[in-house]
């Protein structure tokens, strides 16, 4: 049965660090960085990692899709928060997916994103139900490195399977070549990179054409028929040169989002694909390739069904949810590139009882509360006895998910006393449509005062606490304005 993409979703963090501000700090050590100092890069908030971004992209992709109608949840990244704890499993839990699905992590290469997608497409033909493929990256980059400028943080998600596909999966080809343009060893925090000219001439220009040519031959599609060529490379003109070399139409070269996002690591090929799908037309042929110890090349053909896909945030919507960040020191602090005096309040032990977490994971990771089957009162957390004083029924509560419900602010504050990696800590009482409330942490708040009693808020999956002593982190949901005001030029 024919397989392909059923839906897409995207997520780019709200903050866009101005590259000119990075350059200002580093000009003294490397004036040559000036060439990279234009535009902006996406910058994850302190409470975002690859898992949280993957969750947001997945929520965007799923929209109203029945969450029981999935056979798998895959995630690709080279910056997984956990090396031994399945990250896709956390994403699946946050989405409240059933336990009867296949979950898989794809890692260790800048083409993990396309490799994982290829596997998902191959598997989904036999899976019966669709597979949700997610990929996210938050690369750790050294200060004053090229990557610090050209990298961005972000995620994308694709639901793949058979049925009413918006793009048909035409075929794929992989060239596996242990070409080490860069690497990151077991104990290393940062990538080690070889000369760019060698990577371009011997890597991009030899390995990618081999993969693409093989794919076109295999599928019988002519290079001139390609409508869109998604190839992530921050280096200028690499994709255009490849297109020329391969005989792809000049206008097929897709925007690599360097101007307003940066390259989102192994997620970027899929981020570019999602971005392309947002404006694709039936009949378009989209070629996706990505480079990393070889090359994956995938070919898709857009179908009529794309016009029926419900509107979503996608990459364009994420990019529009934007706030310019002009404080490079904040980026350094969030990414531990500087050691700041956080005060004794920051020393509180954030140990998580794994028994406690497991027992309460529906509440803590899925934000599932309860609804009294007797009086209908929704409440968080779920409890044995109904909170409605006029009811008080015992053992009547049924699972009631809160994560996708809109809430209104009842009260709030901006707290400069409590420890927060990004003070002030915003939090307040939010009241959900349909009932239920929570004294909730807020995130992605504009300090220029966008909050009022009555402001509509939505929940986002975020890191609640980092336990640096043990290398653990716990996640929960935080409230953020549904319609943030775009500010901060």
């Amino acid at each position: 049965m024919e397989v392909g993409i059923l839906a897409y979703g995207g997520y780019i963090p709200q903050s866009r660090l101005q590259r000119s501000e990075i350059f200002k700090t580093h000009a003294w050590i490397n004036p040559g960085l000036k060439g990279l100092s234009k535009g902006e890069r996406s910058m994850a908030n302190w409470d975002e990692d690859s898992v949280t971004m993957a969750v947001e992209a997945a929520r965007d992709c799923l929209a109203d899709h029945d969450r029981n109608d999935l056979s798998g949840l895959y995630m690709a990244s080279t910056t997984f928060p956990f090396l031994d704890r399945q990250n896709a499993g956390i994403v699946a839990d946050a989405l409240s997916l059933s336990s009867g699905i296949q979950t898989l992590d794809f890692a260790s290469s800048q083409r993990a994103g396309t490799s994982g997608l290829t596997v998902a497409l191959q598997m989904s033909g036999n899976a019966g139900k669709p597979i949700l493929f997610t990929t996210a990256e938050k690369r750790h980059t050294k200060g004053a490195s090229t990557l610090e400028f050209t990298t961005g943080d972000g995620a994308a998600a694709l639901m793949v399977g058979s049925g009413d596909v918006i793009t048909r999966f035409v075929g794929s080809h992989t060239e596996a070549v242990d070409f080490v343009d860069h690497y990151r060893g077991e104990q290393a925090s940062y990538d080690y990179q070889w000369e760019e000219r060698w990577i371009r001439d011997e890597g991009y220009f030899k390995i990618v054409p081999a993969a693409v040519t093989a794919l076109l031959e295999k599928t019988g599609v002519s290079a001139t028929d390609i409508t869109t060529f998604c190839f992530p490379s921050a280096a200028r003109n690499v994709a255009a040169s490849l297109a020329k070399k391969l005989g792809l139409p000049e206008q097929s070269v897709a925007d690599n989002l360097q101007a307003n996002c940066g390259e989102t690591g192994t997620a970027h090929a899929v981020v570019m694909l999602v971005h392309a799908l947002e404006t694709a037309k039936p009949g378009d042929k989209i070629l996706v390739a990505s480079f990393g110890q070889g090359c994956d090349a995938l070919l898709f053909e857009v179908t009529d069904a794309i016009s029926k896909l419900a509107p979503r945030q996608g990459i364009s919507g994420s990019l529009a949810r934007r706030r310019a960040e002009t404080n490079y020191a904040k980026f350094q602090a969030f990414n531990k590139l500087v050691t700041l005096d956080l005060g004794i309040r920051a020393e509180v032990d954030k140990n998580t009882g794994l028994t406690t977490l497991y027992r309460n994971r529906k509440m803590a990771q899925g934000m599932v509360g309860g609804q009294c089957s007797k009086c209908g009162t929704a409440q968080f957390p779920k409890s044995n006895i109904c909170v409605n004083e006029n009811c008080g029924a015992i053992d009547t509560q049924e699972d009631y998910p809160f994560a996708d419900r809109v809430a209104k602010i009842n009260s709030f504050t901006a707290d400069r006393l409590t420890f927060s990696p990004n003070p002030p800590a915003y939090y307040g009482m939010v009241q959900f449509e349909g009932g239920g409330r929570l004294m909730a942490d807020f995130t992605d708040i504009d300090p220029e005062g966008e909050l009022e009693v009555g402001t509509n808020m939505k929940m986002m999956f975020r890191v609640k606490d980092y336990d640096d002593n043990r290398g653990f982190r716990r996640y929960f949901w935080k409230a953020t304005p549904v319609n943030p005001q775009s500010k901060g030029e």
Partner: protein
Amino acid sequence: MASGIKDKVAILGMGCSAFGERWNDNAEDLIVEAFIEAIEDAGIDKSQINAAWFSTGIEEQHVGKSAVPLSMALRLPNIPVTRLENYCASGSEAFRGATYAVASGACDIALAVGVEKLKDTGYGGLPQRNRGSVNDLFWANASAPGSFAQLATAYRAKHDVSAMDLKRAMAHISVKSHDNGAKNPKAHLRNRIDEDKVMNAPMIAEPLGLFDCCGVSDGAAVAIVTTPEIAKALGKKDLVTVKAMQLSASNGREAQHNSWDGSHFVTTRAAAKRAYEEAGISNPREQISLFEVHDCFSITELVTMEDLFISGEGRAVFDIMDGFFDADGKVPCQIDGGLKCFGHPIGASGLRMIYEMYLQMQGRAGERQRSQEPIFGMTHNLGGFPHQNICSITIVGKEGA
């Protein structure tokens, strides 16, 4: 309906340490300081005490667990001693334990001791700490000022008060407490301030600035209670008796049910209503002579004036600006400086409030003595957060009033 506590228990003696940054004293030193004053005031021997209740809020910062630290500090003769904690209302709980024991007839003379040694954390403000293993999974990263600050946003939305008018009334509260604290030799903060200083202070949790927040202090307070009959037999005259003691604990409605608007304290209203009934007070605005309320933050005092049914709903701002609660106003509130300036050693605060009432009723309050003779004094001791808290209300007064 139970007959209540009214006039069944009399205060035999009280003591209170100086509050403040007691860098060179352990909690035990503070306990002994307050206890010596109380036992001398009571005029009894330690051996006449039948049982003791011992309150602390954050005992892991000082004495550790159990009642043993109190029993050891005072070398009590192996009598029953109970340690208790109920957020910032702990001190009132110690008093309630001792009072109920006497009222029940189980004890002739009972002791209540509250202490807190907070200035061993290395930083200002209350200790940042965990909230319990499950709560830590989902509770907001909330501090005390940040939690109470939210009363202001909800109060403004409900009563359509401008941010400036509310902030000005809050400032008046703090200025008044500093004026009163300046006259109190045991107070932590004894400097006078003006409204501009409050309004322009650094922000702690919007809209609460530094001077909207009470002091975090070291200190101890002690009460010795007995029956009116025993007090008289011991030669005491003009007794101060307990008229009412009511406690109310949140049940999750404020935190989890949308029937609470965030602008007031559900528990305070419930406890106040019951306390007035127990004390036989029908018109508190006219009948109560003095208040000590839990002014952890200026906004808390403001909304509490309404929750105690002294000011009408939405009217506290006007009463405050009219000087109704000033030391020379109709019903003074925090005549000793309150938590704001006397200080807030958590486990001792509820007892400290009663101590002030006891002194005022006996005319022993020195420079800050209320000129009109007080008849009923009301204390309000609140612990936790506006959305989940413990409220304790005590009314004391002249015997027979």
